[in-house]
């Protein structure tokens, strides 16, 4: 379970401080599909990055599975990211020098999975996302939808507890985007916890729970934080 309390995030700009998040609370339980919505600059991605431990809050507390993770060092944070979270980004963020298969095995190497097991697992995942025939292709030879599917497979590499998706359909045509969201919905149905940032209301409605941010605050009237639990 993810428990964020009174999370603040700000950035210095000259002598001033630019606020990003201004006291956000968020709880995510196992098996949820939570969408974070809001206009550009509302702090959606920042909140997701803090949830995924790729950004640190300026203030507030963060407990993951009951453990305070706000003050951990790089090594522990890397281990948690590796084992607990899978990331999907708007820009796919595949390594262009590696094939689809190699991109998927990358997190497995960081998790110290035995080398012999990695290709088999990566192939299973790529087949799961419908890319069994294109696993040896480089990202530059894949379409946007295919690249995002590789990113989904990569996110699932270490069988994480949480899949964090930041505008996963933002760079995709509607139909392709829809297929990706359906894939995420299927994964959620299989028990994977998903937190997805989107500014698309239609996609946001897919989540079993949605929170809306505006100017770094959870907007009044949003779905209760622990709805459905």
């Amino acid at each position: 379970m993810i428990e964020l309390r009174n999370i603040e995030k700000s950035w210095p700009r000259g002598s001033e401080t630019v606020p990003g998040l201004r006291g956000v609370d968020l709880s995510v339980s196992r098996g949820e599909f939570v969408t974070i919505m809001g206009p550009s600059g509302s702090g959606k991605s920042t909140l997701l990055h803090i949830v995924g431990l790729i950004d640190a809050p300026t203030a507030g507390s963060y407990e993951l599975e009951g453990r305070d993770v706000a003050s951990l060092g790089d090594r522990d944070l890397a281990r948690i990211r590796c084992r607990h979270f899978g990331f999907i980004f708007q820009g796919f963020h595949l390594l262009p020098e590696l094939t689809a298969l190699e991109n998927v095995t990358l997190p497995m190497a960081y998790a110290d999975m035995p080398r012999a097991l990695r290709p088999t697992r990566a192939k299973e995942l790529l087949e799961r996302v419908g890319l069994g025939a294109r696993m040896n292709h480089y990202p530059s030879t894949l379409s946007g939808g295919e690249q995002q599917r590789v990113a989904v497979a990569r996110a699932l590499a270490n069988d994480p507890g949480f899949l964090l998706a930041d505008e996963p359909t933002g760079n995709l045509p509607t139909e392709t985007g829809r297929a990706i969201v359906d894939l995420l919905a299927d994964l959620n149905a299989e028990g994977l916890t998903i937190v997805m940032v989107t500014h698309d209301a239609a996609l946001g409605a897919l989540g079993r729970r949605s929170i809306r941010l505006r100017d770094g605050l959870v907007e009044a009237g949003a779905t209760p934080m622990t709805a459905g639990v």
Partner: protein
Amino acid sequence: METAGLSARLLLSRPGETLVAVLGVALGVGALVGVSTLLRGYDEFQARLARNPISREITVAGFRGPRDGEAAVVSIDDSAEPPQRLSLADGQKVLSEVTGLEAVYQYQSRRFVTSPLSAERMRSLAQGPGGPGPQPGEGGMTLLSAGGAAAPLPPGGADPLQELLRAQEIALAADAKEPVDEVSVEELRGLVVSPSFFAAFGLEAASGSLFDERDQGSESKVAVLGASLAKTLFKGQEALGKRLRLNGTAYSVMGILKPDPWEDGTRQLPFDAQVFVPQQSRTLKTPDGRTLALASSADSLSIMAAPERSPARAGKDLQAWFDRSYGQGRVRVATAAARFEKAVDQRKGVLLVLSILAGAAASAAAVNLFNIMAGRILKRAGSYAVMRAVGATANRVFASVMAETALAAGLGALLSLLVSPLLFHALEGALTAAGGGRVPIRLDLAWLLAGTFVATAAAIVLVAAPARSAARAPIADALKTE
């Protein structure tokens, strides 16, 4: 995918850029290490030379040709009446009057064949390429007199040189009938030496004995073998007492040397691998009953400075003594150390300039590698952030960048290991061809490897700062650059 494998993939993702970086390192490091290894070779040679007795050798150079009844002479003034000449016996006077000298001796390099000689070869050896008498690299003796030692040549008599030729042929033909043992080589290098030669160079007998004054007589056909030659010459058999033929003359092995305590590569031809025969005077009977007196030739006299004495200082004292005794500039005195030092100093001057150029080339290669890697690091900031987002620690990303740099630099270094020796030998050949004679230097592999390692490490270290910075960049910020 492990760090090294990933780094290799990343490195090869831009082959053209990588090739430029690798070749830059190969040429830059290769040039720097090649030149510095050559410089070190000369430094090391000078250090070796300073420890070796050869550095204390002072050569009194003069005219080639013996004096009646004496094996070793150096001409001081042949136009004087009687001609002024310096012999080994005179050398003893030098030792007693000039301080800081410890031995006077002579030696002359020879090339010997061990097989029986054909009649034509006998004639050739007896006559030599320029006529009867001593020839560089050949055996042979010089006519002292015909008709008896110290006796003037009879006017209008038979041509003594032709008589010498015939007499030598007869002597060689007689020697050809003497039985000898089977040897393993067709050709040998050796030295014709005075008895004092061995002591001067600290050479001692391991078995048998070395030459003394009695061996300067013509009847003593004895040889001494260097330590390593003795082991191989008779195919593993004990060499002492064996007989071998050298340029047609049969010699008995009377002694075997201990390994040269000063053998350190300074000498192009180690004493251990050579055969030694004594300088001799001999008489021959011509078919018409005349007696010809002959002596081994030598064109210089060598004097060894004492270890505690500076060879340069001893050389100056010696020159002053000769100038006082025989007139200014009549005798030329030269130290072996000075001869080598002049050649080495000339080369080091050239190499110093080259090393500056090579250093600039290596620096340019390092800067080029730095630029290429820094550019890649900048371009890959997003990729590094992704790697960390999916589980890599900052240290692992840093290791990946450094491994990529090390691979590029390492490939360059490997290639430089080919470039360096090529450059070393090419430069050494060019410097030798430019003059000053050959200086025996060695390619120091350990130095070459160490130099390559240090230069490569320096190139890698340059990249460490931007790599560390990229690896520790905030992930969320870096992702925005992707």
